[in-house]
């Protein structure tokens, strides 16, 4: 008898472990919206506070955020959940993921809510909306979009005698050169100084340069890439010159920020959100931010994710829940909220009117470092959105890295390799 008891005991424990304890008094009678996101650290605190406020303002709705830690995990979780129809109500997603989810037929188009409410979208920056249009329909909505800017160590520039922050590619290269060769700068700190550091893997740098050189990544339908062009060549040459002349060096991931903070490089190109990360680590010198440099065209490519509503999980995506999810998204992107979100996180506000809010004006006056990013909103663009392009940018990153780490690379050979590989991926299947 005792042994049966053991058995029951073990079974009970296992079952308990598997199912967890169900039921939550908080949810009684409310429409629960589950929200999977990847905002960690300070970003999560801000997001959670805003969600709490929304929940307070809407007593019939309960938005339950769930942080997945980072985008990688979020992507894996979403993919696994989509397999078994276990999706949350809403989630952050990159364009390429959204495209995949749309192809699988599990996304509720936001267009249907906009049409139903005859919502006016003119206050939104058009780039923010266009970024969310798939197959001529708005499927997702802008959530956390960041803007690349230059971060500059002003102490170094001053010591080097560089009067103004570079505005063109030529001025930028010149500044890199002076920073890495000027005697006063080299003896300024314990370590030798270089102009810049960047990741070759992250094709974002290359794409921005290419557009600033007057080039285009693909045609409108994203079926053909123009990567073996004159602007493309100029961009790769710019990166190559930086490395070969030893005006800068390659790093991985976000390490260029660490190098900048350690006063090993004078100028980096990084996202507007990097500002908060760097401030967290303490900046021990005078610094400034500036719009990206240009050659022919002024251009800056947005990155970051959007938010979408799923429609395939009966437990989380019934009509009421989807509608509540949309209500939250609409609230989040409203003038005051998007301004608040932008001030707290350095992500871009999605509405033009938010720039005229009192809190925004006060913040720009208090913290001029954020201005450069906001100033670029009118010239902002986005990368192609298809899941094929997602593959392409990875391949491009790998080829760029191969090129930049080779001793004497032939630019034309690499451009051709990039162009043929990318076009075969875009045309494939």
């Amino acid at each position, binding site marked *: 008898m005792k042994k049966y008891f053991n*058995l029951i005991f073990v079974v009970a424990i296992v079952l308990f472990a598997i199912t967890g304890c169900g039921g939550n008094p908080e949810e009684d009678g409310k429409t629960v919206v589950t929200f999977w996101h990847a905002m960690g650290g300070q970003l999560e605190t801000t997001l959670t506070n805003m969600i709490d406020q929304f929940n307070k303002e809407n007593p019939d709705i309960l938005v339950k955020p769930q942080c997945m830690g980072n985008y990688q995990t979020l992507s894996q979780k979403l993919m696994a959940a*989509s397999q078994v129809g276990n999706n949350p109500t809403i989630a952050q997603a990159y364009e390429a993921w959204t495209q995949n989810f749309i192809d*699988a037929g599990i996304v509720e188009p936001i267009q249907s809510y906009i049409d139903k409410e005859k919502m006016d979208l003119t206050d939104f920056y058009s780039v923010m909306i266009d970024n969310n249009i798939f197959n001529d329909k708005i499927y997702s909505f802008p959530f956390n979009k960041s803007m690349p800017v230059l971060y500059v160590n002003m102490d170094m520039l001053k010591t080097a005698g560089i009067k103004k922050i570079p505005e063109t590619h030529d001025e930028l290269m010149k500044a890199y050169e002076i920073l890495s060769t000027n005697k006063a700068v080299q003896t300024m700190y314990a370590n030798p100084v270089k102009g810049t550091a960047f990741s070759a893997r992250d094709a974002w740098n290359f794409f921005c340069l290419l557009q600033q050189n007057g080039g285009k990544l693909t045609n409108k339908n994203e079926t053909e890439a123009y990567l073996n062009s004159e602007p493309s060549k100029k961009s790769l040459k710019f990166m190559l010159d930086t490395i070969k002349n030893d005006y800068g060096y390659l790093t991985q991931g976000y390490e260029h920020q660490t190098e900048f903070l350690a006063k090993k490089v004078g100028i980096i190109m990084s996202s507007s959100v990097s500002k908060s990360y760097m401030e967290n680590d303490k900046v021990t010198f005078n610094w400034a931010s500036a719009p990206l440099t240009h050659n022919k065209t002024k251009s800056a490519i947005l990155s970051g994710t959007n938010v979408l509503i799923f429609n395939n999980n009966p437990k989380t995506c019934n009509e009421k829940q989807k509608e509540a999810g949309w209500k939250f998204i609409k609230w989040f992107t409203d003038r005051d909220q998007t301004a608040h979100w932008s001030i707290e996180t350095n992500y871009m506000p999605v509405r033009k009117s938010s720039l005229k809010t009192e809190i925004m004006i006060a913040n720009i006056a208090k913290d001029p470092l954020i201005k450069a990013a906001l100033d670029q909103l009118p010239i902002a663009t986005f990368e192609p959105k298809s899941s094929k392009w997602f593959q392409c940018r990875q391949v491009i990153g790998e080829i760029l*890295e191969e090129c930049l780490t080779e001793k004497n690379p032939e630019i034309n050979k690499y451009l051709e390799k990039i162009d043929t590989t990318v076009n075969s991926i875009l045309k494939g299947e």
Partner: protein
Amino acid sequence: MKNKKLKKLLSALCYIMPGAMIILTFHFIPIFYSLYYSFFKGGLGKKTFVGITNYSELITDADFWLSLKNTVFYVIGTVPTTIVLSLIIALLLNSKIKGLSIYRTIYYLPVITSINAVSLVWKWLYNTHNGLLNSMLEFIGLNPISWLFDKNWAMIAIIIMSIWKGLGYNVIIFLAGLQGIPKQLYESAEIDGAGLWHQFRNITIPMISPVTFFVFVMSTISSFQVFAQVYMMTQGGPGKATTVIVYHLYDKAFQKFELGGSSAIAFVLFLIIFAMTMFQRKIAEKKVHYSN
């Protein structure tokens, strides 16, 4: 009588169930599910049965062959060096020297440290501009090497780090083997006039051959599955210089969303490792001397 047997069986089941449940849920089901998946294409929601297409596509997939080549390079670079080095260290640690337990701890420390933490530390050591290794090279008058950003060096850098990381585990196993050799063998060899080398060659080597075989098989298997250090240190780069099979598989599944293709690679990797182990048992085990 029968009732008693049943009771015995039930209580045995009780004891193995928690462990068995975990292995079943987290090992066996995923293994067979991934085998099942390898016959399908398309990831999210809908998938279509394509037979062995995922497998036949591997034959023409240049990236797969490159990753296989890189993995073999890694295995050849890691396994023999690990065996030789850990045997030498085990021999040293087996002698009577002062502070033995301190040395043992030092060699074992990397094994119990998280691979992610270790990778980050090594990334700093390998740093082209400020890394300790390059400072040392410069100090003795050599040119610095851009370890992780040179396609000829990146894999070697990962191999060096992996050997360091795995050494302690194999040292402990060799040490156990060495201590299991009866002392009389050495004593009688000494009386017969055998020198240290002959004792090592004719007593130590054959007596620890089961241990050597074990280390050989286990480190081959784990080397074929190398992933974490690549993920942390190079992300398969520069270019594709350190893209090993498991990294390629991960990349296919979680960056390119090709779940079927990636499952096929996983299964092929399983077959490779299985064949390797079988081969080792058939060929190498003949040289193994089991004393009882």
